[in-house]
């Protein structure tokens, strides 16, 4: 062999010396992929559940060509939010969002709002007992083109001093009721009688009697009724239902839900408007349905949630959301019994309703306990947790399912090392490209902190908008929405059982035959 041949062979050898490294890496990658796929296939086979994102129900055949004419009753904090979700923001809000977006390119509120689907609504009437808010309501109602205050300064909406006058108007087809809770039932009953479709905020009523009266009125009417639990539109709840229906958790014995807040605003210490006075507020109309009449009080007008005369505290405001989420997922219905406790432990500002509140519900027919726990002075989030013999699920923005260490069903796979009880067997993060059984630690951390949810697609999804859209779609197609009066009935009775138990210091029972709430008497389960 010649020297030049030797050199060229040596050249080639040295040039490709690292090829075996690539071979080794390729072999390793293949082995790892096969291993992961094998584990994934075994888990998928065992669970038998779709790893596709949940399919949100859509309503077919919606004809939006004719506008729905809506009246807003109550334009406080929530009323304003509902109007925005319906596509109507106050021109000054548009100004503020625009300014904020100019200062900070990451502020997408205006962009998101402008991208929100036009539901073809016309807000023709507004009613609020505070003159300043009534004026603002009219200005928001008139802002059909979503403009700022320089471009939008004409009023196309009428103010009504009383809701009765608003309901009597012939140019209103539907009403959004965001007045304080003590007005919900009466306004909604009158609206149903007047043939106006109803979207009413939670808690549905202030008292148990009102639940029956309102349910009766809605059933007798032909109006489309939607209760304001926008959680009905949350993707992870819909996926959770699929998982529970498949029995992946085994026998469920305990459900824990919570509310966590830790700010004056979260504890209903809302701002008192500087222009508020007896001249600008119709106080007598405000307190008309409340059991106790008191002299004019700005505090009570703006911070009404703190008094039993106007609301039911944590029970009506926040327990209802948690209960409705679980009721949506598990179809719990009204519990057999309830014991509630708590107290005013942090906000000793003269309020009547507790700021720490626990309610324990028993469902002997389902062999499970549902427990709600809340404090308004700690932000520690415990999420929603459903515990079964074979696994547990925690539900927040994301949804995580773990197999139980001692599960009977998963024992063979746990013993084989296919399922690790420390690693989720199912993780769903809204907006992520797809759901997977084998999730990287990175994805888990980012999803857990909501980063994927906030930024995916470059916009946030407003569930309240989806909830109002469902209501208007149902009006247009004459169908029942997801949080109709039957769901509302269950929500309201359940929440009131806790309030009654707390206020009267008794165990409370539901008699399904007589359709009655009984206090302190034991019922056979």
């Amino acid at each position, binding site marked *: 062999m010649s020297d030049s041949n030797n050199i060229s062979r040596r050249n080639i050898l040295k040039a490709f010396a690292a090829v075996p490294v690539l071979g080794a890496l390729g072999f390793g990658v293949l082995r790892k992929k096969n291993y992961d796929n094998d584990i994934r296939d075994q888990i998928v086979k065992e669970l038998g559940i779709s790893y596709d994102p949940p399919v949100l129900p859509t309503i077919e055949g919606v004809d939006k060509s004719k506008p729905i004419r809506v009246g807003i009753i109550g334009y406080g904090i929530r009323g304003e939010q509902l109007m925005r979700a319906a596509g109507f923001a106050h021109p000054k809000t548009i100004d503020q969002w625009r300014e904020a977006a100019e200062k900070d390119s990451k502020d997408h509120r205006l962009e998101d709002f402008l991208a929100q689907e036009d539901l073809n609504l016309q807000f023709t009437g507004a009613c609020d007992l505070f003159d300043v808010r009534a004026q603002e309501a009219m200005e928001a109602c008139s802002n059909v083109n979503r403009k700022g205050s320089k471009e939008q300064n004409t009023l196309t909406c009428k103010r009504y001093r009383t809701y009765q006058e608003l309901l009597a108007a012939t140019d209103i087809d539907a009403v959004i009721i965001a007045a304080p809770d003590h007005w919900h039932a009466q306004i909604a009953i009158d609206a149903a009688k007047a043939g106006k479709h109803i979207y009413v905020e939670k808690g549905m009523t202030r008292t148990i009697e009102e639940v029956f009266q309102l349910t009766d009125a809605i059933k007798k009417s032909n109006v489309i009724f939607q209760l304001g639990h926008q959680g009905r539109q949350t993707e992870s709840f819909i996926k959770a239902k699929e998982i529970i229906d498949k029995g992946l958790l085994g026998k469920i014995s305990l459900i824990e839900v919570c509310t966590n807040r830790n700010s004056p605003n979260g504890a209903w210490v809302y701002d008192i408007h500087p222009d508020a006075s007896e001249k600008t507020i119709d106080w007598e109309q405000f307190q008309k349905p409340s059991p106790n009449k008191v002299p004019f009080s700005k505090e009570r007008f703006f911070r009404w949630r703190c008094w039993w005369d106007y609301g039911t505290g944590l029970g009506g405001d926040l327990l209802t959301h948690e209960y409705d989420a679980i009721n949506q997922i598990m179809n719990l219905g009204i519990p057999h019994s309830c014991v509630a406790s708590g107290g005013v432990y942090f906000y000793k500002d003269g309020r009547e309703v507790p700021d720490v509140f626990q309610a324990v519900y028993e469902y002997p027919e389902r062999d499970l306990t549902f427990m709600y726990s809340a404090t308004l002075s700690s932000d520690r989030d415990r999420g929603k947790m459903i515990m079964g013999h074979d696994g547990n699920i925690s539900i927040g923005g994301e949804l995580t399912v773990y197999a139980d260490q001692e599960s009977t069903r998963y024992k063979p796979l746990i013993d084989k090392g296919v399922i690790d009880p420390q690693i989720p067997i199912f993780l769903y993060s809204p907006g992520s490209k797809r759901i997977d059984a084998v999730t990287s630690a*990175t994805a888990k951390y980012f999803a857990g902190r909501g980063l994927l949810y906030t930024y995916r697609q470059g916009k946030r999804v407003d569930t309240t908008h989806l909830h109002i859209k469902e209501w208007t779609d149902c009006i247009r197609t004459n169908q029942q929405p997801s949080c109709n009066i039957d769901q509302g009935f269950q929500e309201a009775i359940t929440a009131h059982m806790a309030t009654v138990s707390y206020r009267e210091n008794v165990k409370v029972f539901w008699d399904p035959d007589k359709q009655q709430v009984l206090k302190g008497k034991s019922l056979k389960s």
Partner: protein
Amino acid sequence: MQQSNVSYSYSGSQVTLLVVLRILIGWHFLYEGVTKLLNPSWSSLGYLADSKGIFADMFQNWASNPNAVRTIDFMNEWGLTLVGLGLIMGCLTRISIFGGIVMLGFYYLSHPPMVGYKYALPSEGSYLWVNKNLIEIFALAVLYVFPTHQIVGIDRLIFSKKYNKSI
């Protein structure tokens, strides 16, 4: 720089260790790239959104733009893979080293290990100012000034004329 002359003056163990270092870093890049290519749900989104430090605004802006995220995902998947292949095979090695340094520079600047910064993804060790990205940047810089691609690598053939002359 007369690079072939420089390389030719290495001792046997110097060449061996430099080539091994190059292959190890190449392996790291290639595997990171391949894993991302094989995982359809991988995205740079969360990492970008979690950026801290003086460049955080820039990275977070990219995170909020779906087109930018798509481009960055593509560049990471293929950038890491090609840099890894280049380093292992010694093919267009200097460009690969340069590309690797640029990518690591972005990772370092988007997640600088400074006092008071906390990230969603906890690190597997403890870092202050210096982290593994920074060390890998300087390891690549060392490989840049002590090249081995014309001794072991496809560059030996690509740049054969020059190399043969030096022999």
